């Protein structure tokens, strides 16, 4: 058992505690704190990168306090790590390090609290990815949550800050408690908390009512975290007010962790037992596609830059869930690659928005029109990242999306490709419109939606000092991340390597054997066979074509006022999304109502079909 696995979680916890213990001494030493946090993030990223590469040959299991399982019964807690888990955790650490570098010149007056909270956030995310025990998963989920709530409310002077933090905290807490109820129920049946042991126990008997209910309840918390319709309302509120480095983490990796949780719980515990793959695919594919469309429509309508990016995250989360819902190895590999690309590109976009906020003091797209012209480097980075978000080949986002579409088509669901193209066009057009309008002054300012203008102009600058030049510590991480998204897509053999990892992730029997008996399984077998992962000419053509359409749509969005024919589509207050905009009401009571309805619907769908 390699201590590196434990250190990945313990290191940020110890550093957070040390910083806090020495807070009287360190209070004024900004540079020391920043350096400590950056070094910790980088160290954890390095550890996890090593683990990711090492586990491509076989999952590693670490038993805490030395309590190994005997006769297939586990009495301790374990970390069960494969390349997908470790890779996602590594991504989280990379983003934390980038956010901390960005924060170097950010909040000018801050005590030790910010650094401590970011480090505990990192620890929660890493623990969540690596653990193999269902209650431990809940504990890290809550640590992640509490740190995120506090960070979102970091500037409580603004009304929206409290709205965002409260909505975030209440909805996600309700989700966590529902998941805990599910954990209690499955414990009542199996008398175990280890995922492999539970999986083995319930696989012996077929699906019954208790398993279905436990599954739906546990999934609910992750659906809420993953911002899937109708559990998604909190994300836009939280993003609008969280400080930029925190937004990077929320959108880049925390939402994706919710989707990882769903995949993990399904393939480690419930997969064999539930059966009825068509029903599972149907239910979650519907949710995923609905989320993708709703997110894309709202994204195109937004004028508040951070909320715009938040809705695009919701749209992508829907796409990731659609891939996972297909239950094929390629359906899991596609989102894995896409998550990596999306995280890097989205982080770069948020950091650029942070620079805009720092230099120009606003996130209102209408007000900012043309004012970003002097931010030349930022403009280039933003445009590059925007193209990445629009799924331009060869970004990793393009690769991942292509794999999901391929597996969808080969299983007879060409609808997926169509929906993905529409969503990707809408989201791409929105960010490209921002790039063209804000950084290059193209076209006319988007017409003022009075309500949105009021929201966006209330945003005050997050930093205090004079803003003549963009500090290097802000622009370099953004540029590196954007280029990283591009480079990740160029890695040779990425598709097949990730698909192999996905196959092992989906092989429940192999997972159980590895965890409970220490067996080494050389050739994992998933329910569905692996599929070809190469990029065809059609893929490239479709990808370039959709980006071209996105550019066209962005162009139209900027110049529509000069073409009276288009007024109807682009006038604020009209369009497809207008009737459903009022659902995003900002009141947490409504959000919790939708959560209850959502659980009832998902539960009903599974209850009536799986007996």
């Amino acid at each position, binding site marked *: 058992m390699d201590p590196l696995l434990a250190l990945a979680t313990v290191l940020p916890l110890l550093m957070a505690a040390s910083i806090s213990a020495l807070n009287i001494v360190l209070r004024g030493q900004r540079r020391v704190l920043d350096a400590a946090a950056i070094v910790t993030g980088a160290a954890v990223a390095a550890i996890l990168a090593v683990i990711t590469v090492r586990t491509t040959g076989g999952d590693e299991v670490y038993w805490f306090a030395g309590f190994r399982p005997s006769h297939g019964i586990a009495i301790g807690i374990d970390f069960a790590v494969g390349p997908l888990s470790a890779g996602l955790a590594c991504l989280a650490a990379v983003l934390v390090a980038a956010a901390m570098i960005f924060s170097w010149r950010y909040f000018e007056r801050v005590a030790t609290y910010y650094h401590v909270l970011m480090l505990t956030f990192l620890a929660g995310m890493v623990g969540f990815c690596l653990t193999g025990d269902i209650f431990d998963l809940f504990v890290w989920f809550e640590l992640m949550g509490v740190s995120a709530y506090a960070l979102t409310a970091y500037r409580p002077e603004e009304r929206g800050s409290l709205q965002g933090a*409260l909505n975030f905290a*209440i909805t996600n*807490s309700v989700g966590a408690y529902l998941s805990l*109820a599910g954990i*209690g129920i499955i*414990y009542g049946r199996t008398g175990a908390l280890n995922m492999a042991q539970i999986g083995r126990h319930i696989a012996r008997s077929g699906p019954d009512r208790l398993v279905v209910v436990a599954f739906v309840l546990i999934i609910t918390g992750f659906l809420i975290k993953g911002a899937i319709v109708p559990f998604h309302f909190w994300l836009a509120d939280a993003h609008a007010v969280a400080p930029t480095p925190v937004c990077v983490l929320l959108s880049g990796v925390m939402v994706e962790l919710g989707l990882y949780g769903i995949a993990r719980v399904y393939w480690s515990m419930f997969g064999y037992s539930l059966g009825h793959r068509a029903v599972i695919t149907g239910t979650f594919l519907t949710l995923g596609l609905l989320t993708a469309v709703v997110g894309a429509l709202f994204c195109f309508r937004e004028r508040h830059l951070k909320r715009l990016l938040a809705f695009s995250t919701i749209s992508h989360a829907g796409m990731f869930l659609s891939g996972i819902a297909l239950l094929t190895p390629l359906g899991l590999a596609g989102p894995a690659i896409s998550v990596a690309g999306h995280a890097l590109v989205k982080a770069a976009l948020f950091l650029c928005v942070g620079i805009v906020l720092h230099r120009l003091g606003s996130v209102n797209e209408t007000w900012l029109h043309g004012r970003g012209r002097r931010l030349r480097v930022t403009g280039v980075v933003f445009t590059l990242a925007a193209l990445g978000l629009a799924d331009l080949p060869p970004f990793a986002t393009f690769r991942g999306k292509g794999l999901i579409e391929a597996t969808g088509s080969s299983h007879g669901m060409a609808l997926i490709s169509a929906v993905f193209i529409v969503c990707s066009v809408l989201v791409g057009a929105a960010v490209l419109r921002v790039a063209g309008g804000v950084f290059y002054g193209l076209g006319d300012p988007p017409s003022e939606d009075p309500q949105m203008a009021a929201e966006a102009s209330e945003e005050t600058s997050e930093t205090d000092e004079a803003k003549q030049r963009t500090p290097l510590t802000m622009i370099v991480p953004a540029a590196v991340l954007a280029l990283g998204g591009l480079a990740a897509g160029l890695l040779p053999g990425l598709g097949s390597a990730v698909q192999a990892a996905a196959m092992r992730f989906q092989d429940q029997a192999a997972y159980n054997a590895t965890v409970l008996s220490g067996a080494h399984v050389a050739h994992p077998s998933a329910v569905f066979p692996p599929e070809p992962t190469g990029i065809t000419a059609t893929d490239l053509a479709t990808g370039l074509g959709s980006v071209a359409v996105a550019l066209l749509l962005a162009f139209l969005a900027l110049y529509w006022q000069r073409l009276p024919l288009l007024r109807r589509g682009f006038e604020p207050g009209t369009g497809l999304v207008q009737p459903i905009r*009022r659902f995003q009401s900002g009141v947490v009571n409504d959000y919790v109502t939708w959560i209850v309805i959502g659980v009832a619907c998902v539960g009903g769908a599974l209850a009536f079909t799986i007996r």
Partner: protein
Amino acid sequence: MQFFPFAVMAWILAVGLYGIVTSRHLVHQIVCLIVVQSSTYVLLLGVGYRRGAAAPYFYDIPVHTPAVDPVVQALALTDVVVEAAVTALLLAFAIQAQKRFGTLDPQELVQFKG
């Protein structure tokens, strides 16, 4: 009697959620969130109970006496601490709302919508 505690759990959960949904006062909403979590205590402890068994503390009783499940008690303990932590944080938000904006009505705190 065999099912009653679990029915109670469902009731408490429903009541807590109803409170959150119909509330116009932040502190009331936060307390309803506590109620929602209390339902999980009932569930956990109910699942681990064994009729006629002793508490799992073997200081005064011989080691092999049948005892109830200690694991759910440990889980419930963890649960309580988590709840206290989240509640404290939410109450801090509520204090800020009252101090800064003079209101504890969630509907009046809305700045972003649509």
